[in-house]
């Protein structure tokens, strides 16, 4: 089923935000909508959006490639995006990340064997006073976790694995 059919109300709400002659503006919110479906954006969804907004598939794909919060590949159910940028690093984010790698048994950019957690290093998330911190990106959106310790993080990982294992 196409995006426009399945989420007709949401699509209508998004399109109403922009002048009708500039409906291409709806492409970013529609990409988020598509991503909420599978956790990544499928080629079919990109084609749906291209048709709906009268854009080429190439133009839609270019946006998915340009913006880091869009993904075109299936990876972990939860993307743990740890800020290792300058202000966080001045509060120990690099060591925090090393320790997370050791505890999860994966390197940055890898996914745990159960397919639950993908560990990523990201640039500033506007939480410099609350490092170490990360955000969890999933189908449900984005959640900040601030002033974190490795113990607290591993507890969260266990909780996510439990929830994530039940939700298909």
């Amino acid at each position, binding site marked *: 089923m196409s995006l426009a059919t399945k989420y007709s109300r949401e699509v209508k709400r998004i399109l109403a935000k922009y002048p009708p002659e500039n409906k291409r503006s709806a492409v970013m919110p529609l990409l988020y909508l598509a991503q909420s479906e599978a956790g990544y954006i499928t080629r079919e969804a990109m084609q749906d959006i291209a048709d709906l907004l009268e854009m080429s598939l190439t133009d839609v794909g270019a946006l998915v490639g340009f913006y880091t919060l*869009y993904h075109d590949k299936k990876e972990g159910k939860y993307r743990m995006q740890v800020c290792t*940028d300058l202000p966080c690093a001045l509060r*120990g984010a690099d060591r925090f990340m090393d320790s997370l790698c050791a505890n999860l048994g994966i390197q940055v950019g890898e996914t745990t064997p159960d397919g639950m957690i993908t560990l990523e290093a990201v640039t500033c*998330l506007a939480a410099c006073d609350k490092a170490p911190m990360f*955000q969890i990106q999933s189908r449900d959106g984005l959640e900040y976790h601030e002033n974190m310790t490795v113990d607290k993080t591993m507890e969260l990982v266990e909780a996510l694995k439990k929830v994530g294992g039940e939700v298909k």
Partner: protein
Amino acid sequence: MAYVLLRHRDIPGIQKLDVYKKNGGFEALKKVVTQMKPNEVTDLVKNSGLRGRGGAGFPTGMKWSFVDNKIWPHYVVVNADESEPGTFKDREIMENNPLQFLEGVAIAAYAVGAKAAYVYLRGEFWKIAAALDDKIAELEEAGYLGEKLFGTDTTVHIYTHLGAGAYICGEETAMLESIEGKRGMPRIRPPFPAVYGLYGKPTVVNNVETLTNLPMIVANGSDWYKMMGTPDSAGVKIFSLSGRVRKPDNYELPFGTTFRQLIYEHGGGVQEARPVKAIMPAGASSSFIPVDDTVLDTPMDYASVRKLGADLGSASVIVIDDTVPIEWIINKTIHFFKHESCGKCTPCREGTYWMMNLVERLKREDAGQADVDLLLNVARQMQNKCLCPLGEFSTMAVVTGIERFPQDFKKQADVNIEPINADLKKVVSQNL
């Protein structure tokens, strides 16, 4: 002194409409819509001395007066992209004092004759955008946004628009491209957005903090506002303090507060009582200020910080102590800019790439002064050649770091900063 912007710290529950109204909420919007002409609002803001809080410090009222009245419709675009490393002030405003912010957006829209305003939030502010959408719906219901405001013919609609993880979209023309559904790449200026902005129409782009000042300026007058701060930099500013300080946080203070007051009185001093070696006053885009007593006693306003060979920018003050080599810092900033360069113009795309290779080479055993010289050379060759400020910003820390801290580019001990939360040691030793 009572807060002007971070009023939620004084008034619990100010994010709720009834509490906000009890504290004068929407009186300012009502006043401008029912009693003032748009140009009178612009004049009031000009007289207040308010300057843009996003980094450039351009006078807000003057920016509004550039909007081309021969071309319609007009738009307001709010820069809520807040992505500069070290900046986290707009987030606190929108999370905790959203109604004052939205009232400010509506006042700006009225002043420039815009019926629609788009708030461009970075994608990571997903929850904030959802909360703002709820507030906007509530305000439309209550008659403070939407059509026929206060029984007049004024219409103001506010819409949120989420970015998706691109620092460059904080550059105003890249932001406009992004709203138009394109990759966030800067346009060549001129024409400036005031003439050719969103959808090719005259557009004012203002920062969240800038606009949040407006209800208070309308309510209390421009003279009240000018009494705070310095003649060059009127009013209050939120300083995002981060780095090696004990109490990193947002501090709303009058312009002209000294670095010493910010770092020691408010920020609790430096971790482990180390001395401050350098300050980056505008996040990762900053020049380095080597710190001595004179610097610490310098007032933080646009003109005084410029005299120190830096810019105040968005006032995201990153404090660096004597345990951290500058070479390590620029390794971080260059990786950031390499990642965030949009790739449109050659000096920035290639320059950040080569600077990244060079800062990585500096980590090697056989690196020497020739590599440092080459890095400086690449940075200098980029300067004044980039299409937008991102490329220029990427060179600031490199050039001033090498020039002002040459000793930090000899062999350095490894940097190994312990995470602030102390439980890590145990876990690390168990697992490594």
